[in-house]
């Protein structure tokens, strides 16, 4: 017994190292396969507030550019509104009838260089944000809300190896999954599109209607390049994103009010 104690005491640093390394390894490997840790993420109060303070300062540097982008989007939406046949659009929308509700938020932390990117936004539970809301930018999609604290939320970006979003080719009903191979932050991959689908470089990819997170037909990007996969039955498509992931400030959160009903129904069906 004495010897065992002496042995442990002699190599206590090695044991301590093994202990810390074991904890870190378990956390690291878990983060590869499971969801982001509920507790240790940047939506927490301390981290969120520090990022918020940092982004308050840095947001002044590209205020002008950001304003221009928002005005351009407004102009587009106005054009759509005035040219739509439905002249009732000017009346206030009945919020009880709308399926989708849109919230606005600002990024306080962006990230696009790691294989698993998460961004942090400045809206949280207090503002009605909850898990699995879709997040879009003025140009395209950004990701899905993963963790929420009182004042902040983290968003799993499409630039994340764990991300898997339903997408389709615009104007058709052929849908596949949008994934990312970590090589280039401007390009994501669309897989599982059957071989018989006619494809053209430059076709637009939009979100599909199979998920209850994003509304149908939110723009994602255009086809940059495509080839057949190993089994020669499906396409691997490189999609160039519309949103510039390196330069995002204002984002919109989308809530699908029918989501709970759809999910409940689906889970009942599977049982």
């Amino acid at each position, binding site marked *: 017994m004495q010897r065992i104690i002496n042995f442990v005491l002699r190599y*206590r*640093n*090695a044991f*301590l*190292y093994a202990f*810390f*390394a074991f*904890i*870190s*390894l*378990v*956390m*690291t*490997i*878990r*983060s*590869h396969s499971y969801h*982001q*840790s509920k507790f*240790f*993420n*940047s939506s*927490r109060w301390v*981290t969120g507030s*520090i*990022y918020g303070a*940092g982004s308050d300062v840095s947001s002044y540097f590209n205020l002008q550019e950001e304003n221009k982008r928002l005005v351009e989007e407004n102009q587009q939406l106005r054009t759509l509104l005035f040219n739509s046949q439905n002249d009732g659009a000017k009346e206030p929308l009945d919020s009880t009838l709308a399926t989708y509700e849109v919230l606005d938020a600002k990024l306080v932390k*962006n*990230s*696009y*260089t*790691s*294989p*698993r*990117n*998460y961004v*942090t936004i400045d809206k949280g539970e207090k503002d009605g944000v909850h898990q699995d809301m879709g997040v879009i930018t003025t140009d395209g999609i950004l990701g899905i809300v993963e963790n929420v604290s009182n004042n902040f939320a*983290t968003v799993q970006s499409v630039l994340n190896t764990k991300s898997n979003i339903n997408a389709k080719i615009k104007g058709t009903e052929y849908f596949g999954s949008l994934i990312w191979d*970590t*090589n280039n*932050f401007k390009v994501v991959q669309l897989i599982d599109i059957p071989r018989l689908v006619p494809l053209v470089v430059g076709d637009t990819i939009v979100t599909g209607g199979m998920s209850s997170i994003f509304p149908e037909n939110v723009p994602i990007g255009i086809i940059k390049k495509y080839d057949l996969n190993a089994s020669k039955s499906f396409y691997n498509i490189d999609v160039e994103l519309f949103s510039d992931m*390196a330069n995002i400030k204002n984002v919109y959160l989308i809530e699908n009010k029918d989501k709970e009903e759809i999910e409940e129904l689906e889970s009942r069906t599977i049982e």
Partner: protein
Amino acid sequence: MNNTLIINILRFVLLVLTQVLIFNNLNFLGFINPFIYVLFFYWYPIKGNRAIFMLTAFLLGLVIDIFSDTLALNALASVTIAYARPAIMRFCFGVNYDFQNFSFKNTTKVQRITFLAIIVLIHHLIFFSFEILSIAHILLILKKVFATGIVTLILCILFSSLFSPKSE
């Protein structure tokens, strides 16, 4: 004694803030985000309790992980450096390191840069290997290790000569 404690706490906080607010957003050439906080392991007092050093290293890594949503990757790399530091120092500074009155003052610049370079190399190797965790991407890992490592090393040398601790 009290003085070094305060200096180290201050260092800890300042390095975390510089790392997460400035260097994590650098994205130089699209992917290079240098890990400037490894300077902590270079500056940490040489004669000290190793257990406390490892605990501090783990906390430092974990705090940076929480900020950058890379769970426990920095913690793993930091703890490894903290554990291996005496061996690295013996390798860089030779037998001098074992003497009681050893300090950075009686080492050459080349020795110190080698020491820093080894710390950076080990940190980056562990960080990027476990971040990607796939042997198929070995070239990508090496590319990231060397590109980021060189930038980190240059910045660390600049910082260490700017804020060289005179009292130690």
